[in-house]
């Protein structure tokens, strides 16, 4: 946790940046047409929420990304556990996993639109292809790095496979999985917004695309600001959950 001093600096930096931006736009040093003005963006965000016109879009994007996040993570963790515990399967599937992960996801968006339509599903699918691999690789790595001594000890103490899963593999992989969750949130948002941007009728990505279509930079920046706040809030939530579930970890710098 940063101290009060660091917090003040952080706030000051943001304020300074916004003021500089505001000043540069107003005095014509940068073109407001291309760069907009912070106060205008704030007003726009305010209006969106005051009139309530942003809520349906926010709702759609949230639903898409939460679904992509949940489905992708679940599949990733399950597959990660499976492949980590079945080296034979892993050896066979390895090239396929690598090949699939090598596909740039943006090119999938049109295909998913064809398969799943313009609605929610195609965006969720896009998000899942991104989130899945993050969760998968981290779970796989986490399970592979379980201390062999701890594992042998548990087995000698009578642990069966399901005990090992619940008391050894999953807790050991938990810190990897949690660090992946925070990356995954970002990816889920990317999946949702890119999907919306490329073809949809609702969502923040759609809002941004609309604004862009009429060269409304204020609208684009306002959409970005809302997205940013949204991701930060989710990230804080995961962080709080992580601190609760990983109390057993030694604090950094605390020594042993």
């Amino acid at each position, binding site marked *: 946790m940063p101290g009060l001093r660091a917090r003040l600096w952080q706030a000051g930096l943001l304020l300074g940046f916004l003021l500089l931006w505001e000043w540069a736009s107003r005095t014509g040093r940068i073109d407001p047409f291309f760069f907009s003005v912070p106060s205008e963006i704030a007003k726009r965000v305010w209006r969106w929420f005051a009139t309530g016109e942003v809520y349906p879009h926010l709702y759609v994007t949230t639903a898409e990304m939460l679904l992509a996040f949940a489905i992708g993570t679940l599949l990733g963790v399950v597959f990660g556990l499976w492949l980590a515990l079945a080296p034979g399967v892993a050896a066979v599937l390895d090239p396929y996993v690598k090949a699939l992960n090598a596909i740039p996801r943006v090119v999938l968006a049109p295909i998913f639109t064809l398969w799943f339509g313009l609605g929610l599903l195609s965006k969720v699918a896009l998000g899942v292809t991104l989130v899945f691999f993050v969760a998968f690789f981290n779970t796989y790595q986490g399970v592979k790095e379980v201390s062999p*001594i*701890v594992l*042998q*000890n*548990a*087995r*000698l*103490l*009578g*642990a*069966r496979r399901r*005990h090992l899963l619940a*008391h*050894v593999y999953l*807790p*050991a992989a*938990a810190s990897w999985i949690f660090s992946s969750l925070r990356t995954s949130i970002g990816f889920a948002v990317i999946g949702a917004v890119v999907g919306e941007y490329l073809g949809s009728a609702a969502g923040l990505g759609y809002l941004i695309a609309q604004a862009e279509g009429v060269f409304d930079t204020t609208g684009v920046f306002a959409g970005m600001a809302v997205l940013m706040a949204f991701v930060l809030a989710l990230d804080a939530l995961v962080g709080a959950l992580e601190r609760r579930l*990983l*109390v*057993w*970890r*030694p604090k950094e710098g605390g020594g*042993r």
Partner: protein
Amino acid sequence: MSLLEFRQVSVAFGDYVAVEGVTLRLAPGEFVSLVGPTGCGKSTLLNVAAGLLAPSRGEVLLEGKPLKGLNPLAGYLFQQDAILPWKTALDNVALPLVFRGLPWPEARRRAMAWLEKVGLGRFPRHFPHQLSGGMRKRVGLAQVLIAGPKLLLMDEPFSALDVQTRQLMENELLRLWQEDRKTVLFVTHDLEEAIALSDRVVVLSAGPRSRPIGEFPIPLPRPRDVAEVRLTPEFLRLHREIWELLRGEVMRAHAGA
């Protein structure tokens, strides 16, 4: 019949033959120590006894039958930390009972009694990283003992402790052992500890191809106090006798390293 028997056991790691032709019998209730220079294969032999490592040659008999897979009678206190870092001291000790199907509350209740037995009654909610090295070893000991193994394999369990705590733990171990006379295979590099605790001390030669080169029965009367027994003439005589043999091996290991 012996509880555990090594028959001409050899273990090789690739081209490196760590132990060769080890034959060793442990009678039920016997306390046997293995001593030998570092790297001679003591931990390797314990791993074989626990069924974690299959011998490349020879076999291990458990109550007369060949051992296949994990040793179901063995409790193993590893040389390294082996308790689960993400469970509290209490839950670590309760875990073997949970594996056997006991519900958590009952398992925790019994685990508490064991924590008290090893002197950690005040630290049930501490996580391993909040405990000292010696305290973690004691959690490990309670975790192994709560499962009620017939055979106890211990790999330098007290080497990280200071002299006083160490003697306390040694006496504690003897007291617990006296209660139900488990068969113990105890590994240490401390000859005095081996003599003070054991019925028999087995000296291993320096590796590679290490094997037992001397067996010494320890006829010291029980119950023993590990601190007092060290001062008896009989103890000193045994120490001199065994050390004579061990010293040569330690020197050889040192020269080879």
